[in-house]
């Protein structure tokens, strides 16, 4: 490894460490909300920052680090939800503990199951908008798209989510 790229990597680790201290609490809460399991959320938190470490370009750092980190976290969490769905591991006792009562557990699992079935891009946009609280313009800046593209997708994602939720809750 030459000196330049070595330094670049040291910089990356430094920058990521700072961001970790600044954002890990909120990102963890977000991940926990999605996956409902402490251990998995902690795992995903680590994966988020390691993924960020690898993909961060020091020459072009993201203009909004937290939004950028949330996007990585979102996709990792969605992967987990999809995998669980594939393996039909939809019930978690930890969820019952987190929620405290049965009814809400069922609903939470339904929500997660539906999110897992959305198209990846749609799910990502929906989560960034609804849970992270980014605006359509911010999401567009993050993904390099036009705001109108993001809004159209968001509208469709909501409709699809609703349809899935109705289907799943009738089963």
């Amino acid at each position, binding site marked *: 490894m030459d000196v330049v790229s070595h330094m670049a990597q040291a910089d990356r680790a430094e920058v990521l460490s700072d961001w970790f201290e600044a954002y890990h609490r909120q990102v963890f809460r977000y991940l926990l*909300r999605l996956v409902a399991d*402490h251990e998995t959320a902690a795992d995903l938190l680590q994966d988020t920052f390691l993924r960020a470490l690898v993909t961060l370009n020091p020459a072009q750092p993201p203009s909004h680090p937290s939004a950028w980190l949330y996007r990585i976290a979102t996709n990792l969490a969605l992967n987990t939800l999809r995998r669980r769905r594939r393996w039909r591991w939809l019930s978690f006792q930890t969820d019952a503990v987190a929620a405290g009562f049965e009814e809400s557990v069922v609903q939470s699992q339904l929500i997660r199951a539906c999110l897992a079935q959305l198209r990846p891009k749609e799910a990502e946009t929906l989560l960034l908008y609804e849970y992270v609280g980014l*605006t359509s313009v911010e999401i567009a800046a993050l993904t390099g798209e036009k705001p109108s593209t993001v809004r159209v997708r968001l509208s469709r994602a909501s409709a699809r989510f*609703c349809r899935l939720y109705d289907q799943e809750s009738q089963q």
Partner: protein
Amino acid sequence: MNCNDVQQYLAVRTELSWVQEQEVQEHLRKCAACNARWQVISRSRQTLRALPTPAAQPNDHALSAIRLALRQRFGPSRRRLGMVGGVFASLTFIGVLLLMLWFVQPEQATVRPVVPDNIEPVASVVPTSELPDMPLNNVVTVLVLGRDEGGRTDSVMLVRFDRRNEHVTIVSLPRSLWVTYPNGEAGRLDAAYLVSGDQGGVFAKATVSKLLDTPVDYFILLDFAIFEAVVDLVGGVTIDVPTVLDDPRYPTSNNGITHLHFDAGPQHMDGKRALMYVRTRHADDEFQRNLRQQQVIKALFERLQQQPLPQQLVRVNDYIDMLKGNVQTDMPQDVMLDVGQAALVLQSDDIQFYTVDTTMLVGLELPATFELKPDALDALMQQFP
């Protein structure tokens, strides 16, 4: 504004300017399709909000692991299986090793192999004479069950001896892992031994074999008492305690508690003391405890190797008393001899310990406990090719 515009604005209604909002309202008054879309968007929003927002924080453990990973600039591929010993790793492994050493008959040794009636055989043991005449496998997989005072198999480990590569892999499995038994029922892993009475070992073997999709050749069931006895038999171990250990609530065997204290620095420990050293939990955390266990295993292993085997086997009656009633196995004697001989040339670096930790598990609905994540299961199965 056409329907397409309205429908995209409806998705971000709070972002709209006053003028845009007026236009949207105007359109909604006469367009059923867009009204329907608005209904759906509101409902999905309402539903999504129902997902509870936990106030929890990651534990310090997880945080320090991530900080460390970032500092050391690890790549994204993280090793799922940590090199740490399970609670019983030391006692069971040493028990196995001892058992094997016991059956080894080196040229200069004056002792003979113990006849099997010192060990409770299970029904399925095939006498060596009836075994087909075939070369022994290069790889022998043994399920080691460590049983505590209460009779539960608190420790479940799969040990893989690879004689050709002179390598031993030991994987500790969580005792409360939710598994499917060979009879189709489901339950905890540590209950597998209890489910079928005197065939417990064979049953547990089949359970683990099914779980990891790997053949398990033999089982060995050991009692807790062995660890203490082994340490005493080798004359104790010398351990360099890195920092002061203080546990005011160490549980004693008669359900009481006692105050346990270790000063920092090198010290000699007898069996009882060494057992306390690896079992204490309140003095520090689990991570440290795993390191302590590794430390003692290594010390014991090296100690066993320092002394010539005949000296090890001098106190024959001690060995017999210790093994009596404390060990059950279905491993034929010639296999023990064979594996034991192979074990003699091992260095402590040839032994790798793995354990399943919580990051590799996924919770299940009560009364089930948890099972292995698919990638964790893959990683485990790779240890048993």
